[in-house]
């Protein structure tokens, strides 16, 4: 009798365990499967295929010499002087673009957060550059920097920045500033919009309390406004950094990476390698390198955000 009941217990227990396993480990994924399949097909598979290219030789000009080559592309990358120049250019391009876009965007957001006559119109104008197609703004800025038809070189001479009116995008020393200026103009609205939204979410009583506590305008800004904006700043700066580091349109249209690779950034280098030299394998290797650099950057920034932001 006892052994019999024990046997029943055991089998009941296993059945229960199996059904628990089914219920908690398998069933949820069945419900999620449409989303998983969708994400897998549109995100993961292209990523994996792209990464796999970087381990292959795929040159359209050399169609009979394809196949797996292991780390050959990466070895070539390591000793590629142009890649290292492009990496350095990417850093400065991203750094100056982000810094100016952020500071000007913050200033603009603070101005837009006050009340003045004609605010709606001004707000619409501020957001306009964002709506202009990149290609168009790149061409416009290229012309503005052209001393034959554009006013900028002449103004810079008048201000003493240039010794004579020439096209700064022809000078390898300062050519990068052409696309950077265009990029600043193009990207300020993004920061203005997002930071304005964050500013508007700060409760007005906090400013009143700070005013009564005796804080000056600068103290209010550093001790109330900035801590409140910090999460938004961290996330927008991260997004924009990744975006700008990958953003080759302006450079491609304005300078084409020249002169002498002085404005070549990694992503424009990838583009040139893939679609001018038609070497997809090597272009993929550069792209993977850029991906890892940006991943590391994102991890550091997210960690910083977690450490700094208390709200």
């Amino acid at each position, binding site marked *: 009798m006892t052994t019999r009941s024990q046997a029943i217990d055991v089998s009941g227990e296993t059945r229960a365990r199996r059904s628990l396993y089914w219920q908690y480990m398998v069933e949820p994924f069945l419900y999620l499967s449409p989303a998983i399949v969708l994400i897998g097909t549109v995100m993961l598979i292209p990523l994996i295929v792209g990464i796999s290219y970087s381990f292959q030789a795929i040159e359209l000009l050399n169609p009979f010499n394809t196949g797996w080559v292991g780390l050959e592309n990466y070895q070539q990358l390591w000793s590629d002087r142009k890649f290292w120049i492009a990496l350095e250019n990417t850093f400065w391009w991203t750094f100056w673009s982000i810094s100016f876009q952020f500071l000007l965007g913050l200033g603009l957001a603070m101005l837009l957060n006050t009340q003045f006559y004609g605010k709606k119109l001004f707000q619409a104008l501020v957001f306009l550059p964002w709506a202009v197609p990149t290609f168009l703004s790149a061409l416009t800025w290229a012309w503005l920097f052209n001393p034959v038809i554009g006013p900028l070189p002449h103004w810079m001479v008048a201000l003493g920045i240039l010794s004579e009116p020439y096209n700064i995008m022809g000078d390898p020393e300062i050519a990068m500033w052409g696309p950077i200026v265009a990029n600043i103009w193009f990207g300020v609205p993004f920061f203005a919009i997002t930071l304005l939204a964050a500013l508007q979410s700060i409760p007005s009583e906090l400013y009143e309390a*700070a*005013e*009564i*506590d005796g*804080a000056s305008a600068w103290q209010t800004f550093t001790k*109330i406004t900035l801590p409140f904006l910090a999460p938004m700043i961290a996330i927008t700066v991260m997004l924009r950094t990744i975006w700008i580091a990958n953003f080759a349109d302006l450079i491609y249209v304005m300078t084409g990476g020249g002169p002498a690779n002085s404005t070549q950034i990694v992503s424009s280098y990838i583009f040139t390698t893939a679609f001018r030299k038609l070497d997809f394998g090597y272009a993929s290797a550069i792209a993977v390198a850029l991906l890892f650099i940006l991943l590391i950057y994102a991890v550091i920034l997210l960690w910083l955000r977690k450490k700094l932001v208390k709200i």
Partner: protein
Amino acid sequence: MARIELRNVVKRYGAVEVLRDINLDVEDGEFIVLVGPSGCGKSTLLRMIAGLEPITAGDFMIDDIRMNDVRPRDRDIAMVFQSYALYPHMDVARNMGFSMEIRKDPATERASRVKQAADTLGLTALTERLPKALSGGQRQRVAMGRAIIRDPRAFLFDEPLSNLDAALRVEMRLEIARLHQKLGATMIYVTHDQVEALTLADRIVVLNGGDIQQVGSPLDLYERPANKFVAQFIGSPTMNLVPIKGRPEGVTLADGALLKLPHLPDSPDAIELGIRPEHIEVTDQGDLSGIADVVEHLGSDTNIYLNVEKLGPLMVRKHGNIPIRPGERVGLRIQPENVHLFAPDGSALRRASPNMAA
């Protein structure tokens, strides 16, 4: 410590006049409560005193110095906000010491002052927490601590207890009363809760529609309301109002009964009689009788809602537990010494002697 004066103060938003001709003297160390229904301008008045709203016209003075255009931080006034307005990214200690941090006072002095204030308010164990980790009552205490630490000339409170539950509200009310006794500072307190007003105030300022209706001690307002609005606003449950006809010797009620009111010499002008629920006696030999509609037994008191023929509804509050059932006929007697009479314009009629009411 400070004496605060308001002279003919006006507040307008465009063409809308929110406050009209406000005159008020607040003595040094006095606890003034501004009370009124929502939208009466009481919070606006407080914010004008704090300097958060500009004063449209008139003079605002602290210790005889005109302060109309002085910035809030130079007025040396502390304010406790309804929403507490604690800085969410700073811990309790930093929240409380923020004004000293701003002034760049030495850190050691700041720490000791913060500790002292935290001890006073029972926050010692919480100084390292962020506001989000505190309960409503604790946040309220921190907001008060932030005010205390500055040792200001005056404290302003903008409905500080309205976000707390009933039990906590009573507790914090006592806390504020204790604080006032201890600091002896001038305090101006805004509330729409008349119990808070009656329990805390040295003097109450009743506001309605942008005008001061009456200024007086809690008992003054209860016993000698200046008009119908104050009479109905102060005191809970609300005062009963009954239409009457004025006679030289008293008033006649709608059912024809004459009520003699020797202490109200101006009774011929009266059109309405006010009597508080606690000033109607339940008796068999009354001058009125009505049918009990609803009876509420509160334990300590019994509220009886009656319908009186020709007079309309009346409410009576009796101390203790009265065994009356709905539908029963109840005899009533109005205490003549506690009757208030109102003229057609709503103002209260003069009494013969200010100490008549018991």
